């Protein structure tokens, strides 16, 4: 295996997914490297959530394969999911547990030894400033508190791949700033991040590469410069995105 090969943390090879007669994702091939932040953009119903669910093992591809750190998600799901963390757009917490107990549960589910779990819990507690409310029942948390707790839980086992769906929804500007700093730090430490978002300013600021999906097909992939060339439009990401996705719409002009 070459060094380049060993650096690939997520590989999607000809991935397609069908719902009834409708293809939600068609022939998607991607490779994400270690320490890369890949942003995934697309209009509503383009296939972003389906792709994320397939990456997390919640759905199986109708065709093609997905490997996480070399482990096939269907054939070797446990090992693949051990290297991955997922932060959904609607954060899930057990309403009748405290934040600390939730972190302990996630550490146990990931099989962390007790000593290591304690150490990691205090690290993420400090990192996400959870000290003030970690002993409260999560039922009483605000959206921001919930989001921080979910992020802390997702990073407990130091995953090699982090999948994040719409992380900035409902966050105040300070929290968004902190989130962006965090994502940068994680990337610098070598974590591969797959970020799905409609916040084009966040994507423009953070992403190493951007994939644009429309009608289930990957219609553009590369740096902002490469996407601009593809769209033959030199402007902000918003305009490039709109141009590429409008060209892909049925009935759009040549």
């Amino acid at each position, binding site marked *: 295996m070459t060094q380049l090969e060993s650096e690939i943390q997520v590989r999607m090879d000809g991935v397609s997914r069908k719902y*009834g007669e*409708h293809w939600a994702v068609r022939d998607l091939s991607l490779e994400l490297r270690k320490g890369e932040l890949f942003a995934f953009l697309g209009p509503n119903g383009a296939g972003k959530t389906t792709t994320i669910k397939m990456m997390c*093992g919640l759905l199986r591809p109708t065709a093609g394969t997905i490997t996480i750190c070399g482990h096939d998600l269907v054939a070797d799901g446990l090992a693949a*999911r051990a290297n991955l963390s997922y932060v*959904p757009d609607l954060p899930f917490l057990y*309403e009748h547990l405290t934040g600390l*107990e939730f972190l302990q549960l996630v550490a*146990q*589910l990931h099989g962390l030894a007790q000593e*290591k779990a304690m150490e990691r819990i205090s690290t993420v507690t400090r990192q996400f400033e959870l000290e003030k409310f970690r002993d409260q029942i999560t039922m009483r948390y605000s959206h921001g508190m919930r989001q921080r707790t979910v992020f802390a839980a997702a990073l407990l086992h130091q995953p090699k791949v982090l999948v994040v769906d719409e992380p900035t929804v409902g966050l105040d500007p300070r929290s968004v700033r902190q989130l962006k700093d965090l994502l940068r730090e994680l990337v610098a430490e070598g974590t591969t991040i797959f970020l799905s978002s409609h916040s084009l300013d966040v994507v423009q600021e953070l992403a190493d590469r951007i994939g644009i999906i429309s009608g289930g097909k990957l219609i553009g992939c590369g740096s902002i410069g490469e996407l601009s060339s593809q769209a033959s439009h030199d402007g902000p990401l918003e305009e490039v995105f709109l141009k590429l996705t409008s060209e892909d719409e049925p009935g759009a002009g040549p």
Partner: protein
Amino acid sequence: MTGSMPDSGLVPFLMLRLRQARHQLAELRGEGWIKVVSIAASCGFVAIFAFAVALAGFQFLGRQKLPLGGDIVGLLLDMFFFALSGLLVFSGGLVLYGSLYDSQESAFLLSKPVPDDRVYAHQFIGSLAVSSAAFLLLALPLLLAYGLSVRASPLYFILLIPCFVFFPLAPASVGGIICLGLVRWIPNRRKEALAAIIVILVIIGLAWLGSGLYRLRPGATSSDDEALNEVLGHVQFASAQLLPSHWMGRGLRHAARGELEPALRHLAMMASVGTAVFCLSAWIARRWYRIGLDRLSQRGRAEFRQRFVWMDRLPGFVPGIGEAERALLLKDFRTFRRDPRQWGQMLVFLVLLGFYFSSLRRMFPGEIGWVFRNGISLMNLMVIGMLLCASCGRFIFPLISLEGKRVWLLGLTPLPRSAWIRGKMAFSLMLCLLFSLPLLLYSDLSLRMPVELIVLHQVAAIGLSMGLSSLAAGLGAVWPNFQEKDPSKIAVGYGGTLSLVIGLVFLLALVGTVALPWHVITGFTDKQFPLWGWLVVLPGLASGLVLSFLAVTVPIRLGNINLDRQEF
């Protein structure tokens, strides 16, 4: 650190349950002693009611010189456990479906490196607790009453505890296997498959009842003993040697007699088979759960097409409600009719009750004494009332809580919040009247009861339908649970249990005032209703009307007040 394969077994899940229970108890304590006392009192009331009814039943059998430790009562116990097993298969499977395929928690756990069978086992334990709550509350008092009636040895009472832990395992696991299989193999037609299973069960039940009635047709039996033997022979299947429900009944009867070895043998067989079936269901879950979840999401998006259904016209005939409430009523009715999980159990009960009532006339062609007919008629009214009470608690009480998830829609309409409750009440009333009036009329006609009693019973059924509907809809707004989206869990929660108890008290009070005086007077006067009897019946009827009025107005008023104060 990542990449390691965690193997902490079920420990995290057990700790999760314990911690959740601890915090829920602490919250309950924090909400004041009234809630704790009312929960305990509600459960106590239901248990004492069931205990009293069961004790009276066993004493009645004793007075008929029927040996309580003998084969006939043994067969009745076998029938009881067999019927409970059937209900547990059904309710266990339904609750588990919601937990496995329609919960955020399962999606969260499945994205973690946890084997699928452990997620299944975790959800199985939760659904078992929900689906067997009613079993515990009703079966325990019955078995205690049996133990006291036969003066059972202490061994019987000791063995009751493990019995209650292990008995639901096998039926609930069978329900789990059916649920996993339906979603795995026919995900797009699972509702139709469930409806087909219900229809098949109803057909089998009808065939069974029909053959029983044929054997008891007029002239087929020459004596009561022969007829009794025919009936016993017909239900003998419940005592089949390979049924775990039979081992439960047999083991407990041995325990009651203090026979340690056979008691332990039968109960150990029941427990080990239950454990084995659970392990089989977990093994199947390891193979089918994730595939089923995947196939469930493959449903075609444009599969459902709106069609005209004559039943949707029914809400149009409900008088006294505005157009907006009618629209809400139609929405609730459509949701109800499109979900066989909601009406499946009701349909089974309805058909079985219909056949039971029709069998009354055939089984006792004129020879049955007036006292028995009188008693059976009253009992039938109570049975219908209890079914209404249970159905309102299960289906109507959670409706306001479920609206909490859609409050952005209803809350922004120019519709007062009181209309939400009126809409639910009208929906419930429509179903209750459709269910209770014809059944009760059929029962009384089958028993050839006098016209004045038929009228009294119909008035009682209308009062019950109105009162129980208002209690369920109104109290559903008094004690809503906007956090939970599973209606079965809302129904067995604090408010649901309390509402059920209040409904039962109302049922007893209404039947006690409207119908009981007539039955008692004619019971003593051998069918002839004396003129002075109206001096008792009419005030009773008036009291019943006042009770119904209070049951309709008070809960709706309280519900309106609470709903107006509610912040979402």
